[in-house]
Every structure is written in C-alpha cells, then in structure tokens.
C-alpha cells in the first residue's frame, strides 16, 4: 500500500511537473500579460504622420460642400435638406488631437523629452504640434461653436471635460499660433512631416496665414480684436501665390487616396450644384471645365444638380455634371489653406479698413482681389493671361468699393470650391453668396444650418457640461448662432 502511494505520488509529481514548469508559484505569471505585438511607448514622428493624415478631413467634407451649395446630391438628398443635425467630432479628438497632445506631453515632460528627439528637436516638435492642434480646433469650433478645449484630451484624468466659450478658444488659439511660430529652433527639423517636410519657414507661414483667416473671422463678433490680430499676422508674413498654397498630396494608392476619388469609385452621389453652376455661367467663369465634367449622356452643356429636392426622380445619373475629374484623381492633392483664400482675406481686411490708417484702402483691396482670382485660376489650372484679363474686366466681376465684400465673397466662394466648411463659414460671416435653402428643407427653421449639433455622446456621457453649454450658447440646434456668427 505504502509503495503504491509513493508510486502514485511520483506519477503526480511528474505529470504536474510538466504543467508547472517555469512557474514557481500559483500566483506568479511573469510577463505572460505583456503583448509582444504592441508598443507601450510612442514614436513621436509616427504620431505626427498619423495626425497629418487627418488634414484632408477638414477640407473634403461632402456635407460642408453641400451646405455651401458647391455640390448637390444626386439620389439621396438628406444632407441637402439638412436632415441630420448631429455631427461627430469624435475622430478629430481621438485621432489627430490626441496624437498631437501626446507629442506635446512627451516633448515637454523633462523625463520623456530626451527619449523622443528622434522626431526632431523638442522645440520643433512642440511648435509643429501646437500649430496643427490649433488648426484642428479652429476647424472644430467653426462647426460646433463652444467645444471642450481647456479640459479636453486629458483622458482618464478628466472624462467629462467642460465646454469652453468660442471667444476663449479663439483667444487661446491666437496665443498658441504666435508662441508656436516663435518656438522653432535650429535643432533637428521634425521627422515624419509629410505635409511641409519639416520646414520651419513653411510652418511659420502656415501659422500666420491661419491666424490671418481667424482674425477676419471676428469681423462680426469682435472686430477690434480681429483687426489687431489681422495686422499682426499680416506683418509676420502670409502666403500670396498659388505655389505657396498648403497642399496635402494624396498618393495613388487606396490607403492614401483622395476622398472624392473614393466617393466616385462605385457611386455617383454628387454633382456640381445648379445654383453654383448658374453663378459661374453668369460670369462666364473660365474655371468651369476644371470644376465640373460634362454629363455622360452626350449633352454638350454642363448641367447642375438642383439643390435640396425632396425627390430626384427623373434625373438620371448620366444627365448631370459630376465634380471635375481633375479634382478627383486618386492622387489629386487637397488644398488645406490656399493662397486665394489668404488673398481674399487680405482684400476684405483692406476693404474694412483693417490697416494702420484704419480706413478702407480700396486700391490695395482691389489689388489683393484680382490676385486672388488669378491665383485661384492657377490653382484650378485654367489660368491664361487673356482670359483672366477678360474675366476681371466684366462689370459683374470687377472690384467696386460699394459692394466690395459681396464681390470678394463670391470669388472666395468659387476659390474655396469643395472646401465646403470654410466656404460655409465665410457665408455665415458675410451673408454672401446669397443662398436659398432649397424647395423642401427639413431643418428646424427651414433655413440653411448655422452650426452643427454635438455628437449625442456628449449628451449621454457628459450631461452636466452639456447642459451648461446649452445655457450659455443656446439650444443644441442647427439654427443657433455661434459666437463668431452673432451679429
């Protein structure tokens, strides 16, 4: 009996020994719980590239281009009738902004700063990250108004950030852009910069040009501050030629292709809108062949899509003009900030007297205005000196002080083609172009939206702060005017 017990105990020891090998105690697992295929530390230049890949999303929205009536929907007209009101800024916060925040954190913490210099000098990384972060917040606040800013992006340290007033956000963005532009040093340039190749001079001009556009955006809400920031940005140097425009180059591969190319791969949901095409044709705009294609049904004329129809029955896909093919090649670049936009901004500033003299300078404004048109034609590849001269000579186009802002705005509307959110923003600020909400709008007041409502996640998960922003800003509706849109 005793022998059998010993035999059995030995057997147990041998069998269990196989299982317990390398494990001294039941409670210890060494590094079993470490994922060998994932990194717990960042490579900051890869975070930067990741953030930069989001730049096109700020300028290629179909909804934005619909609001601005650059395009119309061919089949499902929900967006053109303003049906959806809640739009998510989710991907901006969790994507580029979080990446940029991590770059800032890792480069400013003395403990981690030396570990990330592979991405460029700490100062240069901080400068680029701050400029980009300001750019994304500029885009976000223009669409939604008051948004979480000062308490945002703190992850587990603050899961319910408060909403900051747009005025405070603008104030801080001006400061950030100025400080960041001054922060570049002579150390290693940033790595992974697929946008401006780590060139500090380009980044500084990007920051200044953005600041100039932001400054003019205060023309309704706070022109005094706007004027100061405007003159400051202008004297720091902004871009003036199409060659200097800030372009994001798409690649001829699926993963990095132009969004419009992707939208036309299997569907034909968008065409140039009728009101926009009508205006272009009314001024004999030489840019039309670049902005639209002729219908494929053999029609020799361009045909715009009527805007905001309840039903598009009877309008065949092949009977209307799609967006110009040149703008939707797989690797077509997208312009993030364009020289024409900057030039029209300068023109409007001069027309408003945002200069040292403090009075409208229509000579300078007219100069910037025609340069804006010229650079826009260059941007769309339709420039030639003779047609340009003929175009600007038309009374409908020629600069006139009495309706300077209207004229500048219409040209800016054309120049910003497909960058709908910026065009829509300028429309909200100036009231031009004059847009009609279409025959059957579904928005709360039957008008074109003046902001977008928050993602419902804020209401569900950040209720107190959500309620308090409704108190300060107004109902979470598309007809509530945000601060920069308040007359």
């Amino acid at each position, binding site marked *: 009996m005793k022998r059998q017990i010993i035999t059995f105990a030995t*057997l147990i020891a041998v069998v269990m020994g196989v299982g317990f090998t390398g494990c001294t105690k039941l409670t210890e697992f060494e590094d079993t719980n470490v994922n060998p295929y994932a990194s717990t530390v960042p490579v900051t230049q890869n*975070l930067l590239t990741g953030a930069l890949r989001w730049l096109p999303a700020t300028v290629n929205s179909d909804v934005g281009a619909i609001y601005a009536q650059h395009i119309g929907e061919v089949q499902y007209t929900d967006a053109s009738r303003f049906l959806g009101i809640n739009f998510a800024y989710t991907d901006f916060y969790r994507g580029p902004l979080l990446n940029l925040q991590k770059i800032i954190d890792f480069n400013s913490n003395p403990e981690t700063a030396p570990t990330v210099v592979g991405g460029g000098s700490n100062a240069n990384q901080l400068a680029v990250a701050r400029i980009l972060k300001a750019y994304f917040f500029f885009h976000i606040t223009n669409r939604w108004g008051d948004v979480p800013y000062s308490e945002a992006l703190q992850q587990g340290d603050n899961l319910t950030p408060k909403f900051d007033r747009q005025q405070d956000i603008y104030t801080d963005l001006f400061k950030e852009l100025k400080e960041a532009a001054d922060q570049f040093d002579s150390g290693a340039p940033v790595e992974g910069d697929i946008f401006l190749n780590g060139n500090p001079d380009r980044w500084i001009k990007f920051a200044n040009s953005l600041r100039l556009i932001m400054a003019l955006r205060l023309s309704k809400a706070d022109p005094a501050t706007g004027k100061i920031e405007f003159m400051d940005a202008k004297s720091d140097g902004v871009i003036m030629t199409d060659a200097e425009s800030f372009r994001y180059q798409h690649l001829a591969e699926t993963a990095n292709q132009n969004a419009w190319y992707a939208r036309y791969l299997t569907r034909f949901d968008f065409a140039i809108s009728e009101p926009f095409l009508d205006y272009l044709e009314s001024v004999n705009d030489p840019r039309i062949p670049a902005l639209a294609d002729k219908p494929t049904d053999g029609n020799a004329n361009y045909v715009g899509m009527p805007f905001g129809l309840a039903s598009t029955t009877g309008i065949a896909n092949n009977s209307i003009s799609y967006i110009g093919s040149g703008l939707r090649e797989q690797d077509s670049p997208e312009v993030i900030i364009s020289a024409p936009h900057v030039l029209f901004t300068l023109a409007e500033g001069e027309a408003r007297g945002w200069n040292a003299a403090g009075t409208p300078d229509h000579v300078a404004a007219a100069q910037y205005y025609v340069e804006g048109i010229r650079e826009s034609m260059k941007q769309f590849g339709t420039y030639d000196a003779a047609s340009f001269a003929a175009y600007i000579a038309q009374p409908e186009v020629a600069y006139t002080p009495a309706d300077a802002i209207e004229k500048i705005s219409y040209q800016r509307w054309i120049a910003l083609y497909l960058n709908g959110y910026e065009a829509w923003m300028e429309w909200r600020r100036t009231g031009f172009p004059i847009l009609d909400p279409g025959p059957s709008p579904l928005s709360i007041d039957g008008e074109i939206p003046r902001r977008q409502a928050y993602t419902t996640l804020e209401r569900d998960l950040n209720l107190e702060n959500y309620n308090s922003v409704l108190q300060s800003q107004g109902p979470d509706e598309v007809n509530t005017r945000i601060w920069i849109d308040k007359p």
Partner: protein
Amino acid sequence: MRKFSSLFTVLMMLCTIAFSQNRTVSGRVTDASGNAVPFATITVKGTTTGVAADVDGNFSIEAPANAVLIVSAAGYTASETNIGNQTTLNLTLGAQSNLQEVVVTALGISRTKKSLPYSSQTVSASELNKIRPADISSALAGKVSGLQVLGTPSSNFGEGNVRIRGAASLTGANPIYVVDGTVVNLNSVNLDDVETLTVLKGPSATAIYGVRGSGGVVLITTKKGRKKAPAVTINSLTEIGNVSMLPDYQNEYGGGYSQDWETFEYNPAVHPAEWAAFEGQKLVDYGADESWGPKLDGTLHRSAYSWYPGDKFGQLTPFSPNPDNVKDFYENTIRLNNNIVFEGGGDVAVYRLSYNNRVSTLPFPNTRKEDNIFSIRGAVNVSPKLTISSNINYLNIQQKGDRTEGYTNDGQNIAQNFNQWWQRQIDINELKDYKNPAGGFKTWNIRSPIDARPAYWDNVYYQIYESFRRQWQNRTYGDITVSYDILKDLKASVIFRANVLNYGGDGRIASGGLELDRYNIYNGQTGEYNYEFLAEYKKSFGDFGWEQFVGGNMRKDFRRENSAATVGGLSVPGLYSITASVDRPAVGNSWSDYKINSLYARGTFDYKNFLFIDYSLRNDWSSALPAEDNSYLYPSIGMSLAFTDLIDNAGFKNVLSFGKLRAAYGRVGSDLDPYQLQATYGLGTPYGSNPTMGAPTTVFDPNIKPSLSSEYEVGAELQFFKNRIGLDFSLYRKDGVDQILPLTTTPSSGSSSVFINAGLIRSQGWDLILNATPVQGRDIRWNVQLNLAKNESEVIDLDTTQNLRSYLLGTAAFGPQVQSRVGEKWGTYIGRTQRIDEKTGLPVINSAGAFLSDPNKNLGSALPDYTGGILTSVDYKNFSFGATFSFQKGGQFFSTSKLFLLYSGLHESTVGLNDKGNPVRDDPSVGGGVRVDGVLADGTPTTVYREAQSYYGGLFGIHNFFMEDASFFKLSEARVSYNVPVTNWTKTIKNLNVSVFARNPWLISANTKTWGIDPSELENDRAFYEGGQLPPVRSYGLNVSVGF
C-alpha cells in the same frame, strides 16, 4: 490515420471477445412511459453475459431459452423478464427512481439528482438527436427551460448561440460547452457520441468553474467503450431541404422610380449608327435598384440584358411579372450525416471508435460544408487500482460559399439584394448567364445603355460563383487521465487536457464587378492546455455520509493569427493571391497568452440520504489581472431536502410520490481578456514609407478586479401519481456586480472607453419543467414535457459617479441603438419614434402627410418575456413518434429587411387600392396615394393622400415602424421511427431502425412572416436586429441505423 489504426489494433487485442452458442434475442428497452432508454445494461441472470443498449434503446443479446434478462439503467429500478421462446421482445424498466437518478455535474462528477441543491436539466441523447442536427445549439431549441437559443439562419453555415437565464452580464456572457471535462466549441461535437447533456444554469451550479462559469455550463458526457462483444453501428442520414418562406413580394410594378416610361433617344454623338433604329424604344430605369417603376402590363421594352452583345442584343421583351424570381433562385439543400462506431471491451480494456462525416449545402449553388470527426475513447486497467483512459477527438471542417450576413454595401449579402434593392420583374433565369463575352460580368443594374458596368448591384450569380469565401479548421481535443484507487474510499486522478484549433480561410471579390477586386487570407491557432488533478473521497458514518473532492488546474490559453489582404486591386485580374496586390498589402498579426491557476474543493454531507448540504470553493489566480491583486475566491453553498422521505404513508405517496426542496447560493466571476492593463500605441496606415501611430484611446484602470455574479436560487421537485406527473420549479435572482466594462466615454476627453468595474445588472425569473404521461397502456405511451421560463434582466446601476449611464451594445443598420441603460431592461432599443397626439391618439403629421418623429425614445427590449418548448412523444409497439415545439413570447428586434422592402416598393403592402378604390401608387392628384389620418402640429385633424413612394420612403429613420415582435411558436422537429424486427430474419443484423423526420417543418405563428423572417433564427448573434436576413430552410430526411 495510421496512428488511429494501430491504436485500434492494440485495443482490439486487449479486449476479450465474448463467446456463446446461444441464440440471439433482440428488442428495445423503454421506461415505464414507453420512452426509449439509451444505454441500459441487459444481463442474463446468473451469468456474466451482458450487453448495452444503443442510443435508441435497441439491444441484442445471446441467451438460452427461458433465460431471465435483467435490465438496469441509471435512474431506474431494475426489472427482470423471462424471455421464454421469444427472440424479439421489449424490456420495460421499473419506475424512474429519484433515489437513483444520476446526473453529471460540474467537473464531470456523477451525483444522484436527489442530492443536488440547484436546478440542472438533462437532455437525453435520443431527444438531442431526434433529427441528428449538426450543432448543439439547434439540438437544444425548446428542450431546456431557461435556455434561449439565439438561432442563426438555416440557409447559412454556422452555429447559433444560447443564452441561459437572461443576460448574465452587461455585455452578455456565453455559456461554455464542456465535453468530458474539456471546454470545446459549439461545432466540435459529434452528437452521435453524446451520452447525456446537462445544462447547469446558474452560479450555484457553476461556481466550481470559476471565471468560466458565469454564463452557465453545458456539460456533455460522451459514450465510452463498454465491456461487451465487439459491435458495429452505422447511422446514416439523408436530408433534402428548400427555402420555406420568402417575403410577400408585390408583382404589379417593375423597376424604376417613376411609372412613366423613358424612351431611347438616338444621339449620333454617342451612339453607334445602327442604334438609330432603337429610337423611341421603352427603357427601364436600369440604374434604379427599387421597384416604383411602370406597371407590369407586358409592354415591350428593352431589358438591361438587351444592351449586352449577344443574341439578346436589341430584343424587345414584355415587361411582365416574374413572381417566383427569388424563389426560383434558391435551390434544394442536401445534408448527409453518416456515422460508424466500433466498440467493445473486456476486463482489461474497453474502447469506442467513431467516425462521423457530415456534408451539407446551402440553398444556392457553389456552397458546401464537410465535417469529418474521428473520436477514439478507451480505458485500460493497468492494474486493479490503476486505470489509464483517454478521449481523443479530431475534427476537420471545410467550408465554402457561405454568405455575408448583415447590411453591407459590397453586395456580398444576397438576401439584401432580393429583399432590399431589386427590380421585381427581373427574370432570374436570364441572370444565370452572368459572364459578359466582352469582358466583365452582366448585371440587371447597368448604368446606362452605353455603359453596361453595374450601377449599384452586381449580378447575384456573379456573387455566388465568383466572389465567395472559404474556411477550414483542424481541431484536436481530448484528455489523458490516470486514475488510481489509493484506498478503498480515496481515489485520485491526474489529467492532461488539450483543445487546439488550427484554422484558416480566404475570401475574394472577383475582378470585373462593381467593387475593386480583392483577396484576403488568414490563418491562426488557438487553444488551451490544462493540467489537472482531482482527488475524491467517499465515506459513510452511520446515518451520515461524506463526499469530498479536491482539485487543481493550471490552464494556458493561446491565440495566434496572421492575416493579409490585397489593397488597391489585383495586378492580374482573377489571380487571387496576396502577391497580386496593387498597393502594399494590409497585413495583421496577433498574439495572446493567458494563464490561470486554480485550486478547488467540493463536498456534500448527507443525513440518512434525504438531507444534503453541499458546498464548493474555488480560487483562481489569473495572469490577466494586476499582479498584486490577481487572486479570487468563488464559493457556493446549498441544501437539498427530500421531504417525502420523512413521510411514511402509502396513500399520500400515491399522490405525491416524491418531493424535494432545495436552496442554493453561488458566486462566479468573469476575468479580463489578456493585455487589458496597459495602453498601447496602435500602428496605423502608413503614408508611403512613413509609418503612422495612433495614441491609445482606451483608458485602463490598473486596479481592475474580476466581475462577480452571485445567485440565489430556490426550487422544488415534485412527482405525482407514481411519477405520472413531474414538476421541477426554480426561482432565482442573479446580481452581476463590478462588471468589467469598456464604458464609452465622451470623445472630447480624448478617450473612447474606459475599463472600469461598474454597475449592477439584476436578472431574475423562474424556470419550470413539467413532465406528464397522459396515456400509458400495454402497447402505447404518450409523454409530454413542457419547458417554460421567464426572465427579466434590468440594469440597476452603472458608474453614476462618473455620470456613465448607458452602455452601447450595438447599432442596427439604419436602426436604433441597443443599450444597457440605468433603470431599464438590458438590451433596450433607443431610437426615433413617431410622434403621437395625446388627445386623439393619431400621428402628428405635416401638411404633406409626413410623420413627425422624436429621437432618443425607448423602443422596447431585445429580451423575451417567456421562452420555452414542448417535447412530446408517442410510442406504439415498434413505432415511435416525436416532436419538438419551441416558442418565445416578447422580445423585439429591428428589421432592416422590412425597412427596405417598403422603401424600395418590393413588398405587397406598397401596392393595391386605397379607400377611394384607386391604386395607391397612382398620383394623389388623380385619386391615388396612401391615406394618412393624423393631426397637424397645432392639433387640427387632417387626412392627406400621400404619394406612395414618399410615404414608404418617409418611414425611413422612424425606427418604431421597423421594430418587430420576436414572438414565435414553431414546430422545430418531428420524427417517426420504426424498429424493424430484423432479428426474426437474420442473425447478422442485431437491430435496424428506420426513421423519417422533418427539420423546421412549421413556423406556426410569427408576426414577421410577411417580411420573410423567422424570428427564431435571426442573423445577429445576440438577436438584436437583422440587416438582410437570409431565408429559413425546411427539410425532410430519412435516417437508417443498423447495428451489427
């Protein structure tokens, strides 16, 4: 295979072969109610000759004339029969004995049912295998109270899921399937090998499984070799099926968006000169994928196919209904299930070898699934005290052609095409010719006469023949057990278990269709290894008994996967290889390891075999938890009292033959997945040669604990009138606390979710099992079982301190969200609903007749109120009839098929006459339109006739119109079998059983029939919604079982 055969030989040599000159007596073993009793033991009295009956109770034994046969089986009193001169006879077992009935419980321990303090329900092999289905979940439908089968379309491969006693956790925990102690996947069991299946429903029964037991446990014990003469059994099934239900389509109008015909206008700039002759021909709106077009009145028109080069080019065809176009697309299904068993054994060794081959096809071409399962089970008595036993199972599964489920934009879901985006007049036979001689593929949905590429939809035959998926699996699982009887009352075992799956698959989108061509492939390995020991001690001390088990387990789980997919198309059209990727292919690889160590003990004390106190304790140490706090203890305790043992009154016992009360408490946990304690930076899509990274958005709590569910359960088991009526009732309340949740967070915090311990979900209800034998005669017996359960699962709390009030479970395509919200039922739909005027009860509409609606409303819960089933069997002489009904009352789901059947004008309710007697599809200006009665926003009652397409299109986005009641009552299985008295004619064949059966024969009632949806087989694995449900299949089959 060589290994199998050599092992087989060894076992054959070890076994002793019974030798006899007696004649053969054969027959069938039944219980007092006439139900076949599987695997009863039949011995010849006074000899050592004995055999075991098969799954259907059939036996055959060598015995001399006038011998007495003793038949015995677990759970029954034995009976004796003198055979006289008969060579065929049926043996009837004595009364089912609650003293004796044995059930398999956690850790595979067999216990008398009487001693159990919690409810468990056993499904016999014959019930389970009524129609020999391929997977466990469909075999269980209706057969276990408190178990809801979350089915899957019968026209697709794949298994359903089961949910036991409602939602055990916020995220919904699944039960585990344990085969002879090894945790396996639903699809890995050869049901012909199953001896019994027991469902352990709550933590009081499953606490000993620690972190794995929180969703319940389905315990399967397989047939082992027995001490008997070598025997061979062949079981062969052939089944043919067909699609049993389709939506009620309209056949009055064809494709298009307008009833007015378009005509061909010749344009010399774009058309070839010979097309001038086509001037004025009527054209369908080819690009339309809806059916609001012209009347199907036979008008001659140019179909899409008339623009493709070939004989049909230029032909005019009548625009006529094809009411059976979808029906004609579907084909017959075939299912074969063949099984062969060799078994036998002697004093030294027993063995059982089985081989199962299953083949099935779906109701459309180019589909096939084949399973091959080899099992070998054996035991060798090395010495009187030392036994080595082993179960080894090997499975190979090859599958081709199953379709994507859910709403997709790539056309891979064929049901979505027919039921959502379709032109009703399409001639399906024309589509069978899908290859365009000029290159590419033909479709009904061309862009225009001069551009015959697909607009939105490829030809469905292109999808099926060219763009399909395949997958394969190789799984090996089983155990090796060494047991030793140390002392008379003390036995110990060491066990090694493994379950290793190698799998792979690929998918393709063919070149030349609508979508960019694509190929993807993946392969991986998952599995677990277990090292266990178990010691058991049993001892009686006078009136007291003690049974004690102590065990330990070390488990290692692993997962590896590699995958790759082409990006940007294929460089050589039709070459399905990753190397043909135009852009850099997307690759993925994953790796995860997880270890858990456990010690456990279980014991029962009894007094005079009528009062039982039961306990279990288990401690788990998990590698996935924080190192300083990775140990958790799960206890359970219970009591069982067989109170009728205290009563000694024959009259009373004639009424209440047996009565038992029980109460139990138990706790189980659920662990984290591996690698959930530390945030990691994801690698994103590179830009050229620039890699990208994404900062982690999931926030981890380094102090996270396992979640706990604790359950209280009380119950009663009563047998009346000498067991003619039996009742088993349980009442339970289960609280899931400290749920480990990735709670969604507001995006502006820079995070997507935070892993926390939060919340309380309470699941309470009752289960009832009612057995009755209404008719019992000499040759006839009728037996009925009712399984009925009610459950309510409510979310009591989430982390309200952080203002987290809801957890998103899912979102239906174009439908509402499914949430767990504080204060509401688990699985509550939150979406947009029609606005109703409180005064009049009428909908609020605008002047155009459009319904006004409001967002963020509660649209009901996915969880049913009642679930259950009815099993019935009638045995008459050698005939036996059995049927299974299953039902569900309540529970909602969102139907995307209904949404688009209406939206696209496919359903019959979009046609017909309005109350003015005019076609609803006519324009309201000429008396048509859909009548809408409502009130305007200011309360004024009004009636509007709304243009039909706008009316049905306008329902889009108002989710309450498409919330469907998932209640159903169906006959899910029926079978008639006949035991051929074959031993009258031959000695070679010991038994022969022939049966015919029907699977899914009759959906007796369901609200969703008109939409073509069987709510018992929703595609979504949690039964929340369907995005393009495949149709159900009804099948009929023949099964022949022969024993040699």
